[in-house]
């Protein structure tokens, strides 16, 4: 989880807005599908199943 490359505040805010807009654009029917596609693309870019699994576990917390 201690990635050497993290988002700075400006980057985080940019992604925050982009994600929100994209979920709205996908619509309630397709937003889940959109998010899974995104997760797979990001996982492929990360290239490490254990990092992906750590992210999955973190995201599952406090739902």
């Amino acid at each position, binding site marked *: 989880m201690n990635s050497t490359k993290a988002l700075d505040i400006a980057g985080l805010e940019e992604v925050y807005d982009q994600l929100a807009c994209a979920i709205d654009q996908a619509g309630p029917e397709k937003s889940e*599908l959109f998010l*899974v*596609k995104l997760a*797979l*693309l990001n996982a*492929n870019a990360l290239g490490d199943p254990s990092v992906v699994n750590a992210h999955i576990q973190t995201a599952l917390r406090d739902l």
Partner: protein
Amino acid sequence: MHQPTSEPRRSIYYDYQVMRPWLAAEHPDSARAKVVISGAGPAGLTAALELARHGVPSVVLESELQVSEGSRAIVFTRRSLEILQQVGVAQRLSEDGLPWCFGNSYYRGQRVFRMENPHDDNDRFFPMLNIQQQYLEQYLVEAVQAQPLIDLRWGNRVVGLEQDEAGVRLEVDTPEGTYRLETDWLVAADGARSIVRNLLGLKMEGTSYEGRFVIADIRIDLPLPTERLAFFDPPWNPGNTVLMHREPHGIWRIDYQLPAGETPEDALQPESLRSRIQSALEQVGHADKPWEMDWSSVYSARTLTLPDYVCGRVLFTGDAAHLLPIFGVRGANTGFQDSQSLAWHLAFVAKGLASPKLLSNYSRERVGAAREIIDEAGKSTRFMAPPTRGFRLLRDAVLSLSLTQEFVRPLYHWRTSRPHEYTGSALNCAQDDNARFHGGPAHGAPPSNVKLGDDDYLLDHLGGGFDLLYFTEGPAIPGDLLETVEAARKNGLPLRLTAIGASSPVRGADKAIADADGHVRQRYGVEGEGAAYLLRPDQHICGRWLRLDAERLGAALTRMLSQ
């Protein structure tokens, strides 16, 4: 009283022959059997033929009076053909079947994945061969009828069994009533709904999936190549999967998944079948072609296995031992490997060459194979027919991404049946040079075939017992090696010695293969004089040496018989 139907099954392309039932009254001198095999499907008949090849007689009991209904298993792998070559039916299958190498997956009208499995020049058989199961069974039945060691009894159904350390007592029902049959060993090859398994109260372990598929055979003239076609989420069957395969005799197999909740009875209504098949044809651009229905059935994927294939004096093979999904053609293709393995293990025990403990090796190896297959088939099944909302979301995300993203496309490849490698087998030699080879099939692997000449391949020359391949350019097998081989043979071990690499006959070898172009040496990673491979009767590798000596060969051969 067992009354199998004596009406030929209906088919528009296959002429069913109804056999006469075997009646005890007509065979008053019928004796105790060495081996009884329940079930004359592909697994049972292959087991009987392999046992006969090892010199062990068997009685095969088949409940019906004819071969099975419908095309059922239609895709046979190269390894299956190599096994069927051993029992003498591969040539007929090759002549009548349709070979293929490629599979195509489509989504939203785009081909998103192409499975390429090219045909290697060193292989006699293509990666896949399509032929209906009736033909396979017919050819096996004809081979069985030509084999005096096999007593095939039509219309005989096992209805009761008891066993102790000495053998199994069966109650067999026939059209004239029941009779008793005693046997040293019983092989349960009686399929998915195995009566023997039920009589013994044995339970399989694993998962049953809910997704149901209709499998239907139609006669139609389609100008399409013999390649597998898979359609995901087509507009006419949203969210579901459709498969198409060409079969011989102008027949096509269409498999389509049913919407959740639809019953098999509804799915098999003629109007439902007609409109869905018409939609499938429309999808491939041939809605205008006339077609005729032959056979249909409903199927659901299961990944189940017995935890042990030996229960006292009863051994399980094929679907009686495990139920595997059709995706990846793992049913019959796994059954051939089971039966080939079962036959030699059982033959060695039945002939007194090895103790019954050897049978636990059969169970260990084949249960291991089934578990590996279940693991792989489970992945395929979860992609083909997602069992939960999560799996469906992931599958749909992959379908969507696959239109533009290369990295997800291999997920369409549903890991076609391949032979299990017995890497950790107790039969693998402890003191050989397995790890020091830089190529070639390793411990437990199936053999690599090699083209030797026109219509002449290495595997044509192997099988029926242990095979020792000795690589030499010299005129004779070294004397001390030959003595070790002779000593093993005196103890009853069937062992053939094949010399590879010499252009003239090699003294002491049963056969010499010149290997003038070095292809065998290359495929087996052999770099020097005196290297050797030891193959089990199922042709899997159990030992290999960079330079074989008599002492290590002796240890390896002793290991086989001391299990």
